[in-house]
């Protein structure tokens, strides 16, 4: 077994702050309250930071380290179908697709949420509808995200949630 440093502290702070903010706004806060919007703007800030960090951050935080890749994703699916274990130090190809999906969806939530508060779009039904659709999609994605993290942790024997807390992945030394 060897420990490999993967996620820098800022990525981890970003992740768990996002988790708290998203759950608050999706399940806890009153959508009509000021607090809902304030937390929403924190999410905007977090996502903006993450995008910048995707270009200038540490090695595995950069988008270049996990480009969207269909052939990589099919390769990972083949590994699952055949029970092979290819260890990815950073994000896996399917994980990468989920991250881009989450980030784009969060931007969609933020834009529709914001324009609902502007005078021009106040009370217009389709904007609210769109906000809700984006939120529903994000909730479904988060459930899939958590299921995938648990599944991949069990399949590969690398505890991914722990890595998102401590920053280090424990990898088997044989590979």
């Amino acid at each position, binding site marked *: 077994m060897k420990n490999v440093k993967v996620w820098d502290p800022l990525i981890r702070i970003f992740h768990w702050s996002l988790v708290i903010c998203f759950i608050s706004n999706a399940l806890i806060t009153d959508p009509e309250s000021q607090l809902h919007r304030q937390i929403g703007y924190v999410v905007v800030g977090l996502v903006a930071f993450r995008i910048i960090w995707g270009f200038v951050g540490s090695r595995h935080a950069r988008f270049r380290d996990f480009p969207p890749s269909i052939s990589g994703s*099919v*390769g990972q*699916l083949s590994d699952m*179908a*055949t029970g*092979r274990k290819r260890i990815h130090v950073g994000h896996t190809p399917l994980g990468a697709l989920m991250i881009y999906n989450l980030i784009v969806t969060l931007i969609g939530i933020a834009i529709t949420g914001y324009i609902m508060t502007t005078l021009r779009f106040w009370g217009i039904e389709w904007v609210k509808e769109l906000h809700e659709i984006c939120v529903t999609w994000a909730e479904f994605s988060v459930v899939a995200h958590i299921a995938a993290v648990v599944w991949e942790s069990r399949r590969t024997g690398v505890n991914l949630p722990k890595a998102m807390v401590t920053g280090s992945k424990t990898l088997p030394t*044989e*590979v």
Partner: protein
Amino acid sequence: MSSKTKPDKTTIGLLALIVTQSACSVFFLSDAVADIIADGMAALNDVHLHVEMVATLSLIVAVILEGRFLVRLLRRNAHAERGLSIASGALHDLMEQYFHEWGLTPSEADVATFAIKGLDIAEIAEVRGTAEGTVKAHLNAIYRKSGTSGRGALLGLLVDDLLAQPLIERKEPPKDVPKASGLA
């Protein structure tokens, strides 16, 4: 190290279909749930909702079936790196049939395929990204479940079966080629 072979069009098309239909299922299902929450039990008397639910459920069943088909396709492609000859197709089908009968796990089936192809333990471990001890454990499970004593016996089983039935169906000669020149 990621696989260098490009995924074929069928795989990508199937994946796209699964993703799209899953997304649709999520929205139809959340819509139906929202209706039930909003209207309570009264919603259950709504014929419209029934039709929607039937459509959504059949969509979900379709996604599951497509998923199973995708798994089979991925396995087949993962084992057919040397091109899809008729012979390897027939052998592959036969192997899959046996693996299913013996109740091999996906990992064991993968190891068995490589063992039959003649890879040694170190090579299998390399391809699969696992330790050699893991491969040995898989091999033991394969021999136990198949009731064979080792690699030779396993291979013998398959060869016996392959020889018992014609491997390649005789095909009619292509029409546009004159028969006489076929002998040249």
